[in-house]
């Protein structure tokens, strides 16, 4: 396989071909392979938080984000936890790196630990917006955002209060905003498509 030149060793074409083959196997050729992820946002209203005289932040909701490959839902990994008060985030803890690849598709699902209160619904709406921004940065498409029926309208109302608008049924889709929220209730029943007007303000 090897030949020697008067100037020293050279890689033969065979070795070069082998190197290219190795690189193509080891490189993220998977980038062309789109993976589907389940991203779960679990909401919970915390008890006995900031209990002191004059406290203005004693209603706190927490949202934990977990993600797993759709083909392997049992191996969910905790990504982050965010704490909210009155729909606004007050703290965040990152628990792992976000391993979702560029261009992967996401199925976001909101769930509640117990019957959700107002705090949790507001927090969920904000969390969906943050998730959308993160997904946009990585060119991830969020196919659906599944929301429990009991909180569907409250979360939708909160998104609209934050500047999202409902896409009319006959609207020209090309004029729709870049950030879309395809809401779907579970058990299946209600669907709603919202978009956030970008560029010139909501």
């Amino acid at each position, binding site marked *: 396989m090897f030949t020697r030149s008067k100037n020293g060793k050279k890689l033969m074409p065979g070795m070069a071909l082998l190197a290219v083959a190795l690189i193509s196997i080891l490189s993220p050729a998977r980038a062309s392979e789109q993976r589907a992820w389940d991203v779960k946002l679990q909401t919970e209203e*915390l008890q*006995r*938080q*900031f*209990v*002191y*005289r*004059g*406290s*203005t*932040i004693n209603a706190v909701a*927490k949202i934990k984000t977990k993600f797993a490959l759709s083909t392997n839902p049992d191996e969910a990994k905790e990504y982050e936890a*965010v*704490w909210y*008060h009155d729909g*606004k*985030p*007050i*703290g*965040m*803890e*990152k*628990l*792992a*790196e976000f391993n979702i690849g560029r261009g992967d598709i996401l199925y976001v699902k909101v769930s509640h630990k117990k019957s959700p209160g107002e705090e949790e619904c507001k927090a969920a709406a*904000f969390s969906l*917006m*943050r998730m959308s*921004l*993160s997904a*946009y*940065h990585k060119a991830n498409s969020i196919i659906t955002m599944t929301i429990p029926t009991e909180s569907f309208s409250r979360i939708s109302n909160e998104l609209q209060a*934050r*500047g999202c608008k409902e896409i009319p049924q006959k609207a020209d889709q090309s004029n729709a905003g*870049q*950030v879309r929220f395809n809401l779907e209730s579970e058990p299946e029943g209600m669907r709603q498509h919202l978009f*956030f007007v*970008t*560029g*010139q*303000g*909501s």
Partner: protein
Amino acid sequence: MKTKTTSGNRQNHSSRAASSRQRTGNILVVTCVTFAVISVAMIIGYSFAGLYFVNNRLQTSADEIALAGAKKLNDRDRIGQMNNMVARCRQLVYSSRQDYEETKKVFPDLENFAEPLLTEARDSAGLLEKERQRVSSLAETEAMTAMRQRFDDVKTTYAMTLPWMKVDEPQLRDLKVGRVDDVESNVEELKHFGDLDKNDVAQGYVLDLQAPAMRLYKGELPDGMRLPGDDNDLVFKLSSLPAPVDNTIAPARVMLPNRVEPATAGNAPSAARVSLRLKVETGLGFSSGGVLHSTGAASTTGACLQQ
């Protein structure tokens, strides 16, 4: 013969009786003297025992009063929760700023989408700082009130007058709250923000203990913790508070008074210290007295784990 014997016996008998009377008289004196000595010794003994008892009791009272104040400081884990949330708010602002800057650079059309997310994070930092100051002030006020109340309850049980001792009501010499030296914050280092992690180590925000699992943020930094870049104007302050160890919360406990240091201005205190003085007199007839001093200190309940 009989007569000689009788008189001889009579002589012997009278000399023995005389000697016996003399011995009885000596015993009486000796007994009286001994009794007196024993009585005096008992009085002195009682006095010392009483002093010892009162001194111990005064120390116990000082500890009790300090503990009553210390328990109030981190009541319902308000300081622990605040510390945890302040540290997490800092992460939130940093993450939001990263998202916003990247959005502005790569997707300028989305700037009006990302900006409110950053603004709300920064607003939350301001809100938490206000609440943190409220908690600090409230903790101090409630602790001092609790200590004074406890003192008022205790002092009425002291005054007494006994034949060998007189005890007055104790007086409050000093009452203060502070922090325990060498105790940092209860917040374990938050990770997964590469540049921020490095920044925190470089700025000395993290206590670098030998065991990596116990890397805590330093408490009571004079200028608090800051963020690099445009969010440098925000201040994130953590108070000193014992962290949970192996999921065990440190109980409020009595400690050595010399371990209590003043808390850095603007931070919540986590320890209480009280000094008492008590006038005591002892003795019968001649009086001798003095003043007993006692100092008690206690540390507040440690933080719980973040929910």
